[in-house]
Structure formats: C-alpha cells, structure tokens
C-alpha cells in the first residue's frame, strides 16, 4: 500500500458573469504580464467561493489550496454542500480541466464515471456503442472484446443489442452505459453521483458493483455523493469540503457527524428547484420540504416514536386557482421498497392553492413508526387525471433509534422496517 494520488495546493479560479465584455482586455493584460515574466495579475484577486454572498470581484476561487493524499485501495468519499467545489475537484482529477495553480500526481490510470452514456451515438447499434463508449473511457478494442458478452449480460439488453440506440428506452440506455462503465478497469475510479439517476433496482445494482470494485478488486475509488447512506456504506475515508476548501478529512463516521452538525440547519430542508428529473406539467410544483418538531424547529434526524411535522412548500406557477389538489408522499426504504403513502386523498382533506402563490403544507405524523434507517420520499402533486409534479426520490431522511415502546428497548436492526404498537394481554 502506498500513496496512489497526491494533490498539492490545487486551486481553481473562475470568472464570474458572462464571458464577453472585458474578456479580450483581460486576456491582453494577462499576456502582457506573461511575456514580461510576471505572475498572472488576476491570481491575486478573487472572492471565496460562498454562493450566498454577493460577489465583490470578477473572479472567484472555486477551489483554494486543496491538499490531500489517497492510499491505494482506499474508497474516499467526498461530501459537502452544493457548490462547495466537489465537482470542480472531480473535473480536475479526471483531467477535463486543469487547475489554475497546484498539481495532482498520480500513480495510476484515472477513469471517470461522471455521467454514464457519454458519447453514445444514436445511429449506432448497442454493440457498436459498447465499443465506442468503451474506447472513449479508455479501454482498448481487445479489452472490450474480451468483456463484450459480460457487458451485454450485465446490461440485460440482449434482445436489442443489434438495434440502433435511438430506439432504446432511456432506461435501457442507462443500463447499457453503466454496464460498459462498470467493466472499466482503471487504477483509480472517479464517480460523481451516478447513483442519483435510474430506478431503485439500478441504484442497488450500481452500489453493489461499486462495492465489488473496491473490496474485491482492491481498486481505489473516489466517490462524490449527497447520499450519506451510500457514503457510509462504501467509504473508508471521507473528505468534507466547504466553500472551496477542505473542512475536514478522516474516518467516515467522524466526518459525517461533523457534517451533520455544521450543516444541520441548512441541510434540514431539501431544495427541489434544481431537480430536473421530474415528471408532470409543472403548474404546481414542490419547492422544498423539511421536517419540524412540535416546537416548529427544523430537524435533520428523527427518532422513532417522535411526533413530527413534514412541511412541504409548494407553489402555483400558473394563472389558475386550483381546488382539491391531491398530494401524495410515498415513503420507500433503502432497498426501494414502498413502505407506505401519506395522502390528503386518504384523510379526505381538501387543499387548494391560489394562482401565482406559494403555500406551506404541514402534515403531522404522530409517533412515527419506522425502524432506524434511511428512508426516501417520493412526492406527487396532481388533480384528477392531471399530474402537476412528480419527483421520485426527492430526498431522504434518517430515522434513528428511539424509545418507541416507552420501555427503553429497541428492535434490533435486521428485524424489519416498521414498528407496531402491541401489547400482550
């Protein structure tokens, strides 16, 4: 075991605003400094990457002085808020762009799984695309040939393998793409949120494959995710990023606890506005949701047996008032199994929303009867046959062990997902 990857003083500067006005003059200024052998004048300035603050300068540091080392065979999770610099770091690691200063030294081939299906050509058949995609990801023709059957079998698209990819369903395309990517054999694999796409079955398969890559083959994996459960599941070490710098790096549990502590207030609510994978006509949409305790404070972790509120913020973007809209919230466990559904249709309550307005929907849940674990929410908004907004896997919440039976005793972890009030008489 040795250091396989070493990052030294990585910084990345971006220009704020539109590329255009001033670009040419700044370029000339930079060029003028360079031919006189001076340092780039724009490296001295630049704001700290905090998206909520108003920028005071034209340049921003997306990453600033990142130093870390990765051991061979390690699975390093990278976590942080949106815009903390995770993806920029991965882009640099996968050589899509280069750092403004600093360097990364590596001892192995890096392959990135930033987005599956990159470079698929719709006119080519599945088989031809396996070769093309594999080659783009850095495999040689001979390597792909050796794994062709395996890839096809893993994808489960045998029947369509000689049909152009443009005739594939989107699910089939993702499966085929992931099958190719999963059979890559780089020394270092870089993965960015691929698990966020696809259905529950696919996610499970993907996580399984990643575990196999890291544990069985002993390869190094860098894994970016917002999903704490899969980070906990996969990673041996975690790097926490904040505002373009490293906040903490260390053992998984320790870093995740720190993360939850510092970001508890912010992360307690889940923003949905940047979710693109939603269905429906968007007349009324979910903006965000969070959990509250009885005192009206946002909470990030829930204990079984607690009385809580689930608060949904919805907004009507149309110019029409809707009476009797229907809201359903599906709760799935981490295996993608539907546990239950909460709906105003079931409780016979009417909800209406005025045109061009926002509304908070509060659902009270008493003595939440879920076993400790991670649960996922699917949100649905509609009226009669109209689907307004439908977000699958909109977010997740953690249930921690709590005193549900008021006896101080808890059910062991592998004994089911729900709790039921009962009494021996």
């Amino acid at each position: 075991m040795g250091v396989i990857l070493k990052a030294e003083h990585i910084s990345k500067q971006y220009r704020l605003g539109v590329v255009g006005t001033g670009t040419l003059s700044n370029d000339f200024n930079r060029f003028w400094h360079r031919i006189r052998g001076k340092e780039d004048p724009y490296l001295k300035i630049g704001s700290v990457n905090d998206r909520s603050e108003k920028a005071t300068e034209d340049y921003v540091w997306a990453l600033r002085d990142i130093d870390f080392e990765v051991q061979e065979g390690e699975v390093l999770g990278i976590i942080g808020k949106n815009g903390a610099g995770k993806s920029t770091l991965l882009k640099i690691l996968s050589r899509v762009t280069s750092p403004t200063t600093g360097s990364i030294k590596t001892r192995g081939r890096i392959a990135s799984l930033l987005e599956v299906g990159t470079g698929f050509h719709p006119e080519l058949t599945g088989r031809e695309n396996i070769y093309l995609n594999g080659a783009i990801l850095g495999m040689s023709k001979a390597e792909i040939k050796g794994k062709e059957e395996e890839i096809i079998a893993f994808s489960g698209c045998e029947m369509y393998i000689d049909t152009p990819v443009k005739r594939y369903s989107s699910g089939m395309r993702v499966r085929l793409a992931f099958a190719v990517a999963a059979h890559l054999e780089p020394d270092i694999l870089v993965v960015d949120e691929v698990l966020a796409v696809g259905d529950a079955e696919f996610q499970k398969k993907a996580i399984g494959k990643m575990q196999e890559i890291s544990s069985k083959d002993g390869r190094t994996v860098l894994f970016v995710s917002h999903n704490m459960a899969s980070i906990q599941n996969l990673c041996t070490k975690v790097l926490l990023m904040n505002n373009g710098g490293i906040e903490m790096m260390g053992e998984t549990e320790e870093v995740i606890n720190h993360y939850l502590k510092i970001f508890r207030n912010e992360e307690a609510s889940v923003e949905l506005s940047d979710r693109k994978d939603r269905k429906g006509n968007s007349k009324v949409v979910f903006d965000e949701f969070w959990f509250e305790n009885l005192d009206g404070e946002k909470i990030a972790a829930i204990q079984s047996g607690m009385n809580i509120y689930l608060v949904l913020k919805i907004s009507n973007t149309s110019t029409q008032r809707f009476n009797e809209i229907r809201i359903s919230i599906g709760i799935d466990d981490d295996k993608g199994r539907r546990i239950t559904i909460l709906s105003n249709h079931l409780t016979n309550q009417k909800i209406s929303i005025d045109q061009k307005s926002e509304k908070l929907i509060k659902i009270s849940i008493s003595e939440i009867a879920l076993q400790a674990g991670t649960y996922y929410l699917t949100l649905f908004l509609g009226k009669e046959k109209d689907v307004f907004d439908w977000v699958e896997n909109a977010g997740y919440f953690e249930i921690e062990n709590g005193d549900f039976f008021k006896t101080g005793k808890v059910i062991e972890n592998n004994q089911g997902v729900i709790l039921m009030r009962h009494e021996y008489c």
Partner: protein
Amino acid sequence: MTPHPKEEWLYEISAKRKLINLNFKEIWHYRDLLFLFVKRDIVTVYKQTILGPFWYLIQPLFTSVVFTLIFNNLGNIQTGGVPPFLFNLAGITAWNYFKECLTKTSTTFTSNQQIFGKVYFPRVVMPLSVTISNLLKFGIQLVIFICFYCYYLFKGYELAPNGNLWLFPAYIIMMALLGLGAGMVVSSLTTKYRDLNILLSFAVQLLMYLSAVPYPLAEATKKFPPFVTNFITYNPMSQIIEGFRYLLLDSGSFSWLGFTYTLLFCLVLFFVGIIVFNRTEKTFIDTV
C-alpha cells in the same frame, strides 16, 4: 502490492504548460478510439438515406458540371487542352478534402463540449479522426475522377499523368496538414470568441475562388490585378491545387521552389495549430 519508490509518478495534472505537449504514447494508447471515431463518422453520415455513399460522388460531379458551364462555357477560361470537366473535377476533389478537414476540425471544441466536459482522452484524436475519415471520402472521389479520366482517354483525348506523380502523397499530406492546422487554430479561438465560426463559413467559400480551383494559375496572373495575383500565388492552397492538376493531368506549372514553400507553410501552420490547440484543450471547458 510492491511499494513504489517515493517520487515516481505516472503523470501529473498541473497548470504548468509546455510549448508542445504531444504525448505520442498516449495517442497510441487511444488508437482504437481514433479508428472507432473514423468508423462512426463514415457509417453514420448517410444512415437512413437511400443513396447512401453515392452522395459522396454526386456533390463533386454536379459542382464540376456547374463550374464547367459557368467558367468554361460562359466565362471562356482556357484549360490548356484538358477537358474542362476533368480539369474542374480534379480541382474540386482536392479542394473538397481541404475544406472538409478545415470546417470539421474548426468545430472540434464547440461541437464536442458535451463529451469533452465529461471524460478525458487526448483531444487531438478528434481532429485526427476527421482527417482520416475525410481521406476515405477523398479516396472514393478520386476513384470517380479516375473513371472519368479513363472515359476521356477512351474518347481519344491525349492525357497522361506527369512523371512526378510519386509526389502525389506529399500533396495529400500537405492538404491534411493545412486543413488540420488552420482548423485547430480556429477551433481553439472559437472557444472564447464565436465570431470566427461565422467568418469561417463564408471565408472558405470565397477562398475557393482565390485558390485557383476553377481556373489555371497562369490564367489568373494574366487577368487579375497584381495584388490579387500575389495573393493567389502565395496562397498555399492554390499551389497545392495547381500541383495536384499538374501531377494528374500534366497541365499548369510546377516549381520546386513553390513546392518547398508550400510544404514549409503547411508544416509551420500545423505546428502553430498543435501549440494553440494544446493550450486550449486544458481549460477550454471553462470558457466554451
């Protein structure tokens, strides 16, 4: 695992840049990708068309017919005993290869930003694949040229290739270098300044008329004002086209001086292209 010696790294990702950073070993590693791109370009262009690869032939043939009608019949340009149609076909075949290389290469960064933004592979594979797939197209068009060549021979025209025909591959390489070099410069600049893309589309059109495609170089020196004549004479493309016709049809002029000048021009432009391309490929994704 065997322990590695302390400071031995496979490669380094950094901001430092060398003037020319062509990693031939890496390009060799990605050779399969190069050929798959070539295959993709050729196979997919005429999918779901009835005539398929015949489109490769129709375009130069029809252009030659129109050129013959306008420039030779109407404009009365002399082609020195060579059938005008064949004369035009030779020029257009050569010009097409250069044009395709230039225009396709010039959009390397802008049209591939999706894929370039996701995975790394040596970016230079893209323009190289364009050059190679166009070479195949050029080959097909050359076959058609040879067919007409035989047809005119059969009809009793006295046609013979020049004794320097062995230089033919050099001309093809020069065209490829020229197209690649110019294309890489344009593609690098368009990542920031989109103006060039617009300029290029009509500049190429106009350049054809100033590259001795529909007329012999000698004819131009007689009839054009001196500054235009100078431009045409020092334009490497007109040198190439003139040389191309000289080799195949033995019409027009050839000088070793002109040949050397053109070769040097192409090489210099190619290296400038490589340097600019190399600088751009590292960070273009931030500005494109």
